[in-house]
């Protein structure tokens, strides 16, 4: 009921605004002829500059000599502008001749940037908004767009966790994490205003990426805004001649950090040493695994020394992308079409990523006031890998085993000592393919209401359909554990298995916006009303068979029906929102903006489904004040302040209802077999939380934008604070004995604080242009309140600490000698230990005071989480006579990196760092004694394995040359020919030098596909 009246209220408001605006009209005045010349900063005439009477459509364009003539009222104000220049205003005040020298807009104040449901001049922004132009995302591009954003804008923290072809595994946050793991910290991503993924877009299609960082700019997205919003705008055609651009890149990829394994000599020596250590600890006899003769053979090269990595993977692999963009436009119809093809090979044959992106953005004028836009984008992609891409197995393989063995004259796979052949895993275990087909469309109509100047209405309807297919065809491979063709023959898995899963997702969105922008003398008003609804439907179907006779046919029908099984389900969600925004601007000096959104989400019970998200912001352009007119070195100074509230509703829906679910029959069925066969089971869901609602974040933002020396030096500084309340948390105050899963409760409070700053220098000396930019973002979190277990000691409480803090034991170096072992607190909690093992500090006992024993009571906070609190970027650009050099550095610090390798488990190989492990002869080292197998003492979670890490990477760089206008090119119809060499991940600096500091925490063995270093050769031709 409540909702209905609100809805009604909004309808009335909208209609009233309409009527009110109808009453405005314009008054005519006496006309006067004004002439003049417009020149640029160097005094050269500017043809094509716009001269208009302020507040009207009356105006003209300068001719080839920069001259103009215009007829305006005597008291009119002329606005003279040109793309890339700062506009100037002149009061006519009876003058008949007005000449203007325009200065170039180095800071981009006149640039129009995307904001929520609209655009705004950069100069008019009052919130915290960053933009990146599309041209910055195509230089040394990686296939994943998210990774390309890192370091280029402030406020964004991104960690690329892997280099797997087609992987989307980038941890990406705006101004740090503000909700618990159960929630979702990912920002809202909108492509052309519609919620869509960004990772696999064609970077050539992107006009700009805008990041809305504070509530003033993001609260218009209400309940989805609290993690920040990313607006991606795709390119559109302009009126003019046909333009065809081809861009091609041919690259070579190599792994950024290769895991250095021990050679067979190192391995055999140090494994024996580990066996010795284990024998010492357990009181057993030392029985070396490798004899002195064998070790001598490994040392002199006569023994086996297999580099399993080399045997399994290619050293370098190709990547290529091709893009064609065609745009054209008449005064009625404008279109831009593009086609992208990306082909990335992985480190081995079955690993690859292929992508096809196609797009058409069409704009047409239907009548004078009515126009339409149609965006159609399609994508096919295919990620492929082996069915068993077992990186850990490769690194553990014994280097003392040959990769191949001669069986009756054939080279067959030999085992690696661990009951497998990594080469078989990689090449012969079958495939796992993920295909997607994505169709995205939106049709909008824009109507400039003719009888109300400045008012326009727009309706957009969009539907997206995504189809995913996963096909996993697991095949056995044969390997030999010895020379006997029968007894030593092993098969990796007994049966050929096929699993296929089809998923279909549909999202439909409708948006209606009413926009009003009008200047009244010194006053400028903007108003926006938005109504939006969207629904999303997801369903999937999965099938499985095994018992295939051979791997010749990888289709479902070819499998046996003996163990056939299938599964499927569906879910949906719906949202409804109303938003409004009002801007007011006085003399371009004082800017005020208010916006609000009313959102309803069906994730929550009816009474809690709707709510308001208001935001206010204001800015003062100090540099526009009269008293600053004489300060010529200051070109821009703006102070911004904002406050707003936005939300986060990303939890599973229906947590307020008491529900039962069917457990899946594929993978993990939970039913019971009876005499009558399998009986399906249902089980209770969470104990519902009838009051569940969204998380609400209150955000304060204070910003300062500045520009000096005609904008040659510019930048901004922002401080922010965000308090997120009603955080949805799994309650920890409920005893385990309750036995039920619990719905999340709105019980937590988290503060995020930080600052961002950017400093840019851009200048041109004769024909040399340079641009330097540094960005810095610092974002911390502190848990103010959360549900803690009743008995948890203070040392382990999360309250008062940052997100994802690490907990464990505090190490105190390695035991130096027997005396050190006996005189230190007892560590037998972990089992036996000895000299050379990690010593821990006695923090506490059961009564809160040290008790001379190391046990569970001694765990405490040991360090920050794995996302950097401080991220920085350094971007440079140089141009001289067609030569361009671009370099983007990105780095992070104030995070911990956890790396705890343990070699010799099952006698496996390990990182070559372990050649430096503690021994009686090698006591001055950082690695404790190694053991054959795990050491529960040394393996305990402790700060010993944490590094306060930092890194700086040359994320992308490009060196390019654009050929001068030559006759030859002209004859071929080529307008632009640009050649480039570019790369990504070219250089890396870090205090962690043996491993990728960006990788996720690594356990025993590096189980992952490392990031790639890519070198590209590129060509761009424009006809």
């Amino acid at each position, binding site marked *: 009921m409540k*909702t209905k009246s609100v809805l009604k209220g909004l309808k009335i408001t909208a209609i009233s605004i309409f009527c009110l605006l109808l009453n405005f009209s314009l008054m005519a005045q006496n006309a006067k002829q004004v002439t003049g010349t417009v020149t640029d900063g160097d005094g050269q005439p500017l043809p094509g500059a716009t001269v208009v009477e302020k507040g009207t459509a009356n105006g003209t364009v300068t001719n080839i000599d920069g001259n103009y003539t215009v007829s305006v009222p005597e008291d009119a104000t002329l606005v003279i502008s040109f793309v890339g220049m700062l506009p100037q205003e002149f009061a006519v005040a009876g003058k008949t001749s007005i000449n203007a020298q325009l200065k170039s807009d180095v800071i981009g104040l006149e640039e129009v940037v995307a904001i929520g449901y609209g655009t705004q001049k950069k100069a008019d922004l009052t919130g915290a908004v960053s933009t990146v132009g599309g041209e910055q995302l195509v230089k040394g591009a990686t296939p994943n767009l998210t990774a390309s954003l890192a370091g280029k804008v402030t406020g964004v923290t991104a960690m690329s966790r892997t280099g797997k072809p087609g992987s989307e595994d980038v941890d990406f946050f705006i101004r740090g994490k503000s909700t618990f793991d159960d929630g979702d910290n990912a920002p809202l991503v909108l492509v052309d205003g519609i919620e869509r993924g960004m990772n696999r877009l064609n970077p050539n299609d992107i006009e700009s990426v805008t990041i809305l960082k504070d509530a003033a700019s993001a609260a218009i997205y209400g309940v989805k805004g609290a993690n920040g919003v990313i607006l991606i705008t795709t390119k559109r055609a302009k009126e003019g001649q046909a333009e065809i651009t081809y861009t091609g890149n041919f690259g070579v990829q190599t792994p950024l950090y290769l895991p250095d394994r021990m050679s067979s000599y190192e391995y055999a020596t140090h494994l024996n040493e580990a*066996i010795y250590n284990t024998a010492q600890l*357990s009181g*057993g*006899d030392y*029985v070396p695994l490798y004899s002195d003769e064998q070790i001598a053979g490994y040392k002199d090269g006569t023994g086996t020394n297999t580099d399993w990595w080399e045997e399994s993977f290619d050293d370098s692999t190709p990547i290529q992308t091709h893009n064609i963009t065609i745009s054209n436009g008449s005064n009625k119809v404008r279109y831009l079409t593009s086609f992208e093809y990306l082909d990335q090979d992985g480190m081995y044959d079955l690993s690859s990523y292929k992508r096809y992106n196609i797009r058409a953005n069409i704009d047409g004028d239907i*009548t*004078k006031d*009515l126009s339409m836009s149609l965006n159609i984008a399609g994508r096919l992609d295919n990620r492929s890998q082996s069915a068993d891409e077992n990186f850990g197995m490769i690194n553990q393989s014994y280097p003392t085993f040959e990769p191949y063995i001669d069986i009756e004259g054939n080279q067959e796979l030999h085992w690696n000592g*661990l009951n497998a052949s990594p080469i078989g895993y990689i090449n012969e275990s079958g495939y796992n393919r993920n295909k997607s087909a994505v169709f995205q469309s939106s049709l909008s109509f824009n109507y400039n209401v003719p009888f109300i100047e400045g008012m326009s209405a727009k*309706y957009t309807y969009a539907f997206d359909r995504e189809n995913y297919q996963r096909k996993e065809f697991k095949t056995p491979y044969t390997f030999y*554990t*010895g020379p*006997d063709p029968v*007894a030593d023959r092993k098969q990796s898995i007994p049966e050929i298995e096929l699993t296929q899963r089809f998923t279909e997702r549909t999202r439909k969105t409708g948006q209606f916006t009413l926009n009003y922008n009008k200047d009244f003398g010194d006053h400028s008003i903007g108003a926006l009303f938005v*109504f939006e*609804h969207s629904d999303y439907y997801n369903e999937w179907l999965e099938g499985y068979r095994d018992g295939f006779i051979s791997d010749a046919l990888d289709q479902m029908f070819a499998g046996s029906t003996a163990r056939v*099984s299938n599964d499927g*389900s569906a879910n*949906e969600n719906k*949202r*409804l929102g109303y938003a409004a925004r009002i801007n007011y601007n006085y003399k371009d000096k004082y800017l005020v903006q208010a916006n609000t959104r009313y959102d*309803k989400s*069906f994730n929550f019970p009816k009474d809690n489904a709707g709510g308001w998200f208001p935001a206010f912001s204001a800015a003062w352009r100090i540099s526009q004040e009269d008293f600053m007119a004489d300060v010529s070195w200051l070109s821009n100074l703006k102070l911004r302040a904002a406050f707003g509230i936005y939300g986060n509703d990303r939890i599973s829906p*229906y947590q307020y*209802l*008491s529900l039962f*679910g*069917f457990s899946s029959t594929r993978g*993990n069925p*939970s*039913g*019971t*077999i*009876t005499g*009558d066969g*399998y009986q*399906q*089971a*249902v*089980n*209770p869901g969470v104990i519902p939380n009838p009051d569940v609602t969204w998380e609400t974040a209150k955000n304060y933002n204070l910003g300062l934008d500045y520009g000096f020396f005609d904008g040659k030096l510019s930048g901004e500084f922002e401080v922010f604070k965000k308090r997120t309340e009603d955080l949805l948390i799994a*309650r*920890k*105050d*409920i*005893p*385990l*004995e*309750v*036995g*039920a899963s*619990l719905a999340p409760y709105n019980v937590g409070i988290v503060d995020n604080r930080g600052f961002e700053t950017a400093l840019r220098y851009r200048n041109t000396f004769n024909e040399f242009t340079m641009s330097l930019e540094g960005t810095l973002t610092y974002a911390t979190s502190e848990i103010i309140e959360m549900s803690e277990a*009743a*008995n948890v000691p203070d040392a382990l409480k999360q309250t008062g600490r940052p997100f994802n803090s690490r907990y464990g034991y505090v190490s105190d170096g390695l035991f130096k000698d027997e005396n050190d072992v006996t005189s230190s607190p007892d560590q037998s909690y972990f089992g036996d230990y000895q000299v050379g093992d990690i010593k821990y500090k006695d923090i506490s006992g059961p009564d809160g005071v040290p008790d001379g024993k190391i*046990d*569970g009571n001694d765990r405490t906070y040991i360090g920050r989480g794995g996302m950097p609190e401080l991220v920085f970027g350094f971007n440079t650009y140089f141009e001289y006579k067609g030569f361009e050099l671009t370099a983007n550095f990105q780095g992070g610090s104030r995070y911990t990196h956890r790396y705890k390798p343990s070699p010799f*488990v099952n*006698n496996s190989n390990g990182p070559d760092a372990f050649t430096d492990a503690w021994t009686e002869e090698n006591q001055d080292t950082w690695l404790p004694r190694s053991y054959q*197998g795990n050491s529960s003492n040394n393996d305990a979670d402790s700060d010993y394995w944490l590094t306060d890490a930092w890194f700086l990477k040359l994320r992308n760089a490009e060196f390019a040359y654009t050929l001068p206008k030559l006759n030859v090119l002209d004859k071929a119809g080529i307008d632009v020919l640009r050649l480039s060499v570019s790369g990504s991940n070219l250089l890396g600096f870090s205090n962690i030098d043996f491993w990728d500091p960006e990788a996720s925490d690594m356990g025993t063995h590096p189980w992952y596909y490392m990031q790639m270093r890519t070198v590209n050769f590129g060509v761009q031709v424009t006809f």
Partner: protein
Amino acid sequence: MKKLNILFLIAIATFVFTGCGDDYLESEPLNKISSAAVFESEGYTEAFLYDIYSYMPNGFGWETTGHKARGYGRRSFLDCTTDLVANKSGYVEAWHIVNAGQTPNNAREFGNWNENYKAIYECNTLIQGVDESSLSESSAMQMMKTEARFLRAFFYFDLVRRYGGVPLITDVPDISDPEALYIARSTAEEVYNFIDTEFEAVAAVLPYAKEMGEAGMQWGRICKEAVWGFHGRMLLHAERFAESAAMSKKVIDAVESGASDRELADDYRLLFLSKGDQKEVLFEILFDGVNKGGTVDNFSRPPSNRGSWGGQHNPTEDLVASYEMISGLPATPENGFDPHDPYTDRDPRLDQTVIRHGTTFFGRTYDFAWVRDADNPNMWAPIKNTDAPHAQGLATITGYYLKKFMDPDATVGDFGFSTQSWIVLRLGEVYLNYAEAQNEANGPDQSVFDAVNVIRNRSNMPNLEVNYPNLDKAGMFERIKQERKVELAFEGHRYWDIRRWEIADEVCNGSVLIDPADPSKGGYMSCCYPLKQADGSVKYLTPSTMADVLEPGDVLQQDPYTNMRKVYKWDDKRYLMPIPQNAIDKNPALVQNPGY
């Protein structure tokens, strides 16, 4: 054109404001059903009951697909932490428990605290749901409620024998007041009393196995005689011997009178291949190898019968040595035991339980021989890559493989292909439970002899009286201990028997192999290597024959592929498991078991 504009405006306004009415957000989950609907349908209630049944402990362990597998060991048999079995792999929890023991902060208590309480929550939910249902009077609903009460009592039994007294929760908890949920541990006695009352009540209502069909129940659910059997087992743990004997007697009487159709199986080995078809079984976890399946074949077969996982559960020489001669006397030389022909004239159950040198099974005869090394005649070594002890990474470390449970017809393959049931309760155990309880309560009367003899006779072993005509109570207890050790080997009972009898100090201490191939650690060596002599005969190297078999200067090849393990140092605190630390953290009323 003007008209077009206006039409357009109207169209938009209509679409926007009527297209999404107030009911736009009205929706129901597409993949869930409301709790109320569950209990208004017998079918859904039954489906819920089947979820609870899937919490019943499956002793084959973790690598079983589709079963919640809460119960015994997670990745290996529970008996792998006893003197009966050695696990070779470092990743099984039995190996960790033996090495480092259980602590409140590691997961080595098998996760049973959480899982049992989850199951208890579901039982309480079902019981309450049936009570509040409009169908609550239906006999099917009442039967399901009865079954839920049995299951709840069973889960409490599983908790009390692991941890001692635990919080007793018999209603669906109200989470609005956390303080009220901080329930302290009841005493073990109180928990046993609760189980006693519940078992008594549900047994009165449940049908006999043969009447289950008439009651609309399928095999795989609980029947009357099974509850009596569990009741007898439970009272044995509670040391309420007279009551225990009476309860087991109910089962025996029902079987003998024909009221129950259960009967002892003829073939001891085939019994353990039950797929719901063995009349000796009172309650079992069934598998179909498709939706739910075990992996015991995959894990336990000798490597030559299996590609990847091989023999993980290795019976020890300790166990093999404890099988009697066919005469019923201990296997010692004075009773005719020949250490170099050790498997002749033994209790037939030995060859039905373990695969040893010379066994014919899976269509092959096994040769586990070690030979003198060609290069070093003083060195005994396995023939590489055979099934001989230590011959390869997957070979046995004790000289024996598991035969009990092994299904010659199994599809040996990936996880979850095995179809033999995990037998939770069988008649054979009930006889032995009766014998023990009755002996404790009344001494070795004839009924005690009869109960043990029934089990022995099935395997062609003579009556106890033949060799032990004058057993006193203590003497009979020793015979029962012996009988349970061999009859029930690997079925998960040895673990509890060791605790009930408090004999861990004697049988667990030092029972675990340090380096099984090293005879210098004779005291710990619990394996048997057949050494092939120059004349082709075989001499068996065991702890007791070592001195005779090895010639001066002989050495044994060391097995570099076996992780070295430490002696199992028993500590009496381990008679109870530690309560997991996160349970203690979340409930201030909980008190940890002593010593942890």
